[in-house]
């Protein structure tokens, strides 16, 4: 039986008086790549922020069977969630190497160096630029750095918030290939939030479609990709 990494039930969240999520349910199993699709304002980013305890939430969020709702972000991260926020969320004034080091902030084992080497091998461009500040990297490089930084914490779940945002199509394709490799070859469990349905479903096992703060459609990725309604709404065909 596969291990359920994330189980979300009746999640509600919002900002101030405005409620964005009206009770959503979904789950992510170990080794899976799950994508949440949705238009602008559907509540995709809010979902990830709610999981990480960055906003007021209610409902249930279980990480590896343990309830984490209401916990502080820093504690949730310490329990194994890594979040690459929209706009990448690197530390622009810090060097690439320091960024990776910060990624391993919560770790106390002695293998940080080894992990760093590993990601340098996976993304050689980061190695070339390891002494440069993160702010001086290109958008695609920053996204790679953000992902590598997130993985430095050896998370049991990696959250990616619209990784394609603001990047050129070719770079986006390259990135998603890397995400697929992360998931399939390295076994990283992924929860991706995207507007680019075609690409995202291409690397995902399962998908959810979020509309106005509620789950609209769900199913295996290859079914969704062939679903007429979804094709019309999100794939533009």
């Amino acid at each position: 039986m596969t291990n359920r990494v994330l189980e979300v039930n009746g999640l509600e969240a919002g900002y101030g008086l405005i409620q964005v999520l009206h009770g959503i349910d979904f789950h992510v199993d170990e080794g899976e790549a799950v994508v949440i699709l949705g238009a602008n304002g559907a509540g995709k980013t809010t979902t990830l922020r709610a999981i990480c305890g960055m906003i007021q939430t209610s409902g249930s969020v279980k990480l590896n069977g343990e309830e984490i709702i209401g916990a502080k972000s820093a504690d949730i991260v310490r329990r194994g969630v890594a979040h690459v926020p929209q706009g990448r969320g690197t530390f622009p004034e810090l060097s690439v190497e320091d960024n990776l080091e910060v990624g391993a902030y919560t770790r106390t084992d002695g293998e940080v160096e080894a992990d760093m080497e590993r990601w340098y091998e996976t993304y050689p461009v980061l190695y070339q630029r390891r002494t440069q500040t993160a702010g001086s990297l290109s958008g695609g490089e920053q996204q790679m750095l953000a992902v590598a930084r997130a993985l430095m914490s050896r998370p049991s779940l990696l959250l990616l918030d619209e990784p394609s945002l603001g990047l050129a199509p070719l770079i986006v394709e390259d990135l998603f290939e890397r995400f697929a490799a992360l998931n399939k070859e390295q076994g990283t469990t992924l929860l991706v939030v995207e507007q680019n349905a075609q690409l995202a479903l291409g690397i995902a096992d399962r998908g959810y479609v979020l509309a106005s703060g509620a789950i609209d459609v769900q199913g295996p990725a290859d079914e969704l990709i062939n679903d007429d309604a979804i094709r019309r709404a999100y794939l533009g065909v």
Partner: protein
Amino acid sequence: MELFLQRLFDAVSNGSTYALVAVALVLIFKATTLINFAQGEMGMLGAFFALQLWLWGVPMWIALVLAMILSAILAAGIERVLIRPFDPADHLPLVIITLGLFLVINAVAAIVWRFDPRSFPNLFGDGNAISIGGANLGWYTVGTIITVVGVLVLLQLLLTRTKIGLAFRAVSSNLESSELVGIRVGPTLQFGWALAAAVGTLAAAVFVANPVRQLEPSIMLRVLIFAAAAAALGGLDSLWGAVVGGLSIGLVQSVIVQYLNQWFSFPTTMSLAAAVVVLMVVLLVKPAGLFGTAAVERV
């Protein structure tokens, strides 16, 4: 020439103090994008701690270190109780809180130690290290330079070689992402406040250790403006910038104002006004300062 040299030496000794207070301001600014208007007063209070311990018989340098630790603890408490509850992006309440601290600390020091100036033990020994003609470079000036360089090197090591230092740099670079890598932001900022208070105490002690000065509650009032000008000149988030800024402001005060006085009979009592003008010009012309990285304009 001798006169010029002498003024240059004075500039360095004043500038070093401004640099140290500016470093304290920069530490808090990096952490919270806030200018701590009570920084000078906190340093003054720390200097009184040191003096009191010394009067009780503790050797001077130990008293100073103890005072630095005491002020650091006090500042950590202040951060926890008075600063952390507020939204860091909303400046008005934070400015008001630091102004309140300014009033309270200044007045409490005056109540406890009275307004009479007290001489502070000479930290660096008397006499001159070098005399060139009539210009004397006192041991005091040498001591201040060594202190500044020492503090900066230590801070640099602390920030680049330790885990808390890394966390501090991360938090000052990107607050939200810091939370997302598991850094506990509150305690990290608290660390910044504590560090700033320790440096501020050292700064005030070094300032009043000058044989021509005495410790009194209002001693740091003017220094804060000089230091703020120095910090702005260096770029509010750059530690070495603060040092360069401090020395430059020292130069403005001791050299430029003197020559303005000589040539245009510009009154020397206006050196504070000169500092305010420098501050204003920097903020107008180059708000990021000489070495600052980010645009400082966050309203």
